[in-house]
């Protein structure tokens, strides 16, 4: 009984926040609701028994997305006050949604061969092979060994996103008669943070780094791992950058570039060398696969952290000096 009420309450929370985030009359309300949606989503993952996802969502969905959206909202000069509905598009969209809904219902709830009656073969396979994978936690085993391809390509997706963001940055420069400079509106206003904020960050930042390291180390046996740790470190870096307590992370610094590219490159080198010298693409050698996985994870964590931090804060400092 309590579980049913809990499920219904969570569902009502999620749906009302999702609707409100899109249709709140003021965009700032929408952003606030979306951040809150991230927090409730983390609780939903906890309810559904997905601790890895709950950790990642608490770090990414609740922390980084809010900062990102706020950055963007700040860059938009006039707060867009209303949601404009295009009346002509209402009908097709409702029709399309009804169609999708019907299809999904047919797929999910058709008697004996609905998706809920089928037992997927993959969990048994994972359980069978986990002893050989080098780590004990199944999700980490899938991420770093069985489906290492996903993780490798994901690092490249992060890299691509960062390159895309960097390509868009020169738009900030404005060419005037005296030379290239930032327009006044784009120049970030530097505000000296208040003393209690500085003091609290002095406590919080080491704790964040410590927790990131704990999750990374814990990842082989329990929920946690490179993504979660990377996201937490990125949040720490982003907020330290925000209060100007960290030397600006700039693409022009070679350690930053090395860290960002390092994760993807190391993974690629491992993939190629296992294909060349070993059993095949990303088939780790049997003794020493734990060491290999831990090395990749540490480098990937740092790479993810720096990339996400740059994505979130943007390296606008490149142009201010």
């Amino acid at each position, binding site marked *: 009984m309590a579980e049913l009420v809990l499920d219904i309450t969570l569902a009502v929370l999620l749906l009302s926040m999702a609707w409100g985030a899109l249709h709140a009359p003021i965009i700032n309300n*929408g952003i606030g609701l979306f951040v809150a949606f991230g927090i409730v989503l983390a609780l939903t993952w906890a309810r559904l028994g997905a601790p890895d996802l709950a950790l990642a969502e608490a770090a990414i969905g609740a922390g980084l*997305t809010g900062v990102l959206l706020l950055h963007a909202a700040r860059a938009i000069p006039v707060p867009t006050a209303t949601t404009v509905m295009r009346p002509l598009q209402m009908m097709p969209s409702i029709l399309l949604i009804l169609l999708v809904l019907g299809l999904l219902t047919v797929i999910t*709830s058709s008697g004996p061969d609905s998706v809920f009656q089928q037992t997927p073969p993959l969990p048994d396979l994972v359980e069978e092979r986990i002893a050989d994978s080098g780590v004990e936690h199944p999700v980490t085993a899938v991420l770093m060994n069985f489906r290492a391809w996903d993780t490798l390509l994901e690092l490249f997706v992060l890299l691509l996103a960062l390159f*895309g963001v960097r390509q868009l940055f020169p738009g900030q420069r404005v060419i005037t008669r005296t030379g290239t400079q930032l327009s006044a509106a784009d120049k970030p206003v530097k505000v000296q943070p208040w003393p209690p904020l500085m003091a609290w960050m002095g406590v919080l930042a080491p704790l964040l780094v410590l927790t990131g390291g704990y999750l990374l180390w814990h990842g082989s046996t329990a929920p946690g791992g490179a993504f979660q740790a990377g996201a937490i470190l990125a949040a720490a870096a982003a907020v330290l950058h925000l209060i100007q307590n960290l030397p600006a992370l700039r693409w022009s610094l070679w350690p930053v570039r090395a860290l960002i590219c390092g994760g993807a490159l190391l993974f690629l080198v491992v993939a190629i060398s296992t294909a060349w010298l070993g059993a095949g693409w990303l088939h780790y050698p049997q003794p020493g696969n734990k060491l290999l996985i831990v090395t990749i994870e540490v480098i990937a964590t740092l790479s993810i952290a720096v990339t996400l931090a740059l994505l979130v804060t943007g390296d606008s400092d490149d142009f201010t000096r």
Partner: protein
Amino acid sequence: MNSGAFYLSVGMAVFLIGLHGLLVLQDNLRRVIAVNLMGAGVFLVLVALATRTDPVDPVLQALAVTGLVVAISATAFALRLVSARIRHQQHKTKPDDGRLSSHKDKPR
């Protein structure tokens, strides 16, 4: 109806809310939020499906974790596109503050 099926339908509902928002809304920032909501709906469906087996399915959960990181990098890129577009529009509409396009307004 077990909780897996319940959250499956919640995930579909969140996806549809996002889809509706994407089709109907004109504000770019809200569209980015809508795409993110669609992603959240997909993750909900994945994780609800992961509860079919008793120790929950690690493959689907790993997929969702990967998807989360991809989603945030795509969001960062999309938001940067939004602000770049707005900046572009500003430059077009305000040609008289010493910018490159201001030579048109000068008396010849």
